[in-house]
């Protein structure tokens, strides 16, 4: 505290400029691939020329005209939405039990539920492949739904669990003493009190599925073409500039989800700012 209040007036010196330069170059390195893709997607030639010779929306138009791409897009959206919903429905009660419960094996249960986050995806993919082939699920949308939910569940449990742990437990007791049964106290008091975490968890669960490639390639078939998988397949045959348009759309969806998370976080920060007298 005392350091920041006693900070010297800003001064331009060699060290500081070097730092800015380094930071700038790092940013450029991080953003360059994204920038290139977005630029090329608005280009009017069939070649990947950069910078664009003429602006146009022809590749977006081409995408829209292609039934295969449209179907892949809808499938991805549906799948990610269902995965987000399912992982919230399972993950929120699980997170609550893990955060508030006192029972034997709680640590073990938590470790198991979070393990898909730490196990290498390729190992998970292999395991699921063997399991699902036994069950005859390979190539079905169900297999992807199950696999993606498995991957998204730890995300929900970690985010929502942290919020439950931070939540003042006496709020729930107060609700009970006001005449609310446990389910009503949970629904009317506990869940609304962690709403920002629910939004974040839902958004990250959605993105987990929406971006997923490895499990999708392993477990999918012709009936389970998601956007990332279709990109992968298209790249193998030809470098169609439509790919840059799809990629741009993927980027926009991801940014939209992150914005949602940020908005939820902001509303919480504002509430806390008001709490401080």
């Amino acid at each position: 505290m005392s350091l920041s209040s006693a900070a010297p007036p800003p001064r331009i010196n060699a060290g500081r400029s070097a730092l800015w330069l380094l930071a700038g170059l790092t940013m450029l390195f991080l953003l360059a691939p994204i920038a290139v893709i977005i630029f090329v997607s608005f280009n009017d030639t069939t070649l990947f020329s950069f910078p664009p010779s003429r602006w146009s929306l022809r590749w977006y138009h081409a995408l829209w005209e292609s039934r295969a791409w449209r179907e892949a897009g809808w499938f991805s959206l549906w799948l990610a939405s269902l995965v987000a919903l399912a992982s919230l429905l399972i993950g929120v009660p699980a997170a609550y039990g893990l955060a508030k419960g006192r029972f034997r094996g709680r640590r073990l249960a938590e470790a198991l539920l979070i393990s898909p986050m730490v196990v290498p995806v390729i190992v998970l993919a292999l395991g699921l492949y063997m399991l699902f082939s036994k069950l005859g699920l390979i190539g079905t949308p169900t297999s992807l739904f199950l696999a993606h939910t498995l991957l998204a569940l730890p995300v929900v449990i970690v985010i929502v669990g942290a919020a439950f742990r931070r939540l003042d437990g006496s709020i729930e007791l107060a609700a009970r003493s006001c005449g609310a049964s446990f389910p009503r106290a949970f629904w009317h008091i506990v869940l609304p009190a962690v709403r920002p975490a629910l939004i974040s968890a839902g958004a990250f669960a959605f993105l987990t599925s929406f971006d997923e490639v490895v499990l999708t390639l392993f477990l999918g078939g012709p009936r389970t073409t998601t956007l990332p998988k279709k990109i992968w397949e298209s790249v193998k045959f030809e470098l169609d500039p439509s790919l840059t348009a799809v990629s741009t759309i993927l980027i926009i969806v991801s940014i939209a989800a992150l914005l949602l998370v940020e908005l939820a976080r902001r509303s919480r920060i504002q509430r806390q700012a008001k709490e401080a007298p």
Partner: protein
Amino acid sequence: MGASLQINSLGKSYGPSQAVASVSLDIAAGEFVSLLGASGSGKTTTLMMIAGFTPPDAGEIVLDGQPITHLPPERRGIGVVFQNYALFPHMNVARNVGFPLKMRRVSAADTARRVTEALARVGLAGLGERLPAQLSGGQQQRVALARALVYEPGLLLMDEPLGALDRSLRETMKTEIRRLHRQLGITIVYVTHDQEEALTLSDRIALMDRGRIVQIGSATDLYERPVNAFVAGFIGESTMIGGKVVRDGEAGQALLPAAGGPPLPARPGALREGDTATFLLRPEKASLSAADAPGSGLRATVQDIVYVGEISRLTLRLDGGPELTIKQPNRADAYQARIGEAVKIDWAPDDAVLLAA
């Protein structure tokens, strides 16, 4: 109207440690009872068992004649106020206070009227639209009170409700709580570790130590007639001296200090001559006079004098015996001693107590 509450041999253990051991209480309708005790003495655990949040291992709880030991908290109809207020952060004040009515499916019109009434009762009229985060600590505590009282429970439980408030606000809230108790005739069980709070608010105080009630009684009972040295030491100031009980005059008793010195007259009690005992004298019960003044008394020397405004606190050493602390009012008609002076100290034997050691 208030509800009566009986607690019979309530017990609760966490692993090997007994948080509450065989606590029994019989509280009349409309009574204000405090559970007083040091940290970890089992006050909160007892309160949480009454509220229904902690299942007891043993014992029984009866509210207004109905056994409620195994009822879930939401079906007990008991109001609870928590130390940290526990307001619902996402609801405004009116919705917080209206929540118990919503759970009871009271109509919207009735709810609005009763919420307005409840807020007026705690002095928060017109603040219904605020969020809890926009209120001061004292205001939040009032909202918590209004929420606990809005459905007119017969019993109100409060766990250190003033613990998070600053000193002057605590005084104001104490007055408010007394007023509400008088106006509503509600039964209150109040947990605190602050003896002054307990003494000023309660009809009766249950002093707890290591999961047990050591003594229950009025403030006067605990102060004037403590059952043992623990109670005497916990409530108020006192001088305590160990020794043996001896006969004093016809029917009187006194304590012969183990460390030597004259016998100290005290109220005759259940102890017999020859028993080891602790002599207890409250500092304001003794009076001081010049060494050569007529009348009874024991000779002593003034060791130290500390001036604290309305009184001075004097440390005296009895001739050949132990030290005593007394309080002397700073008035012209009270004897004003000097350090090192030989004086005479006297007290009514009925004001000193002999406690089993």
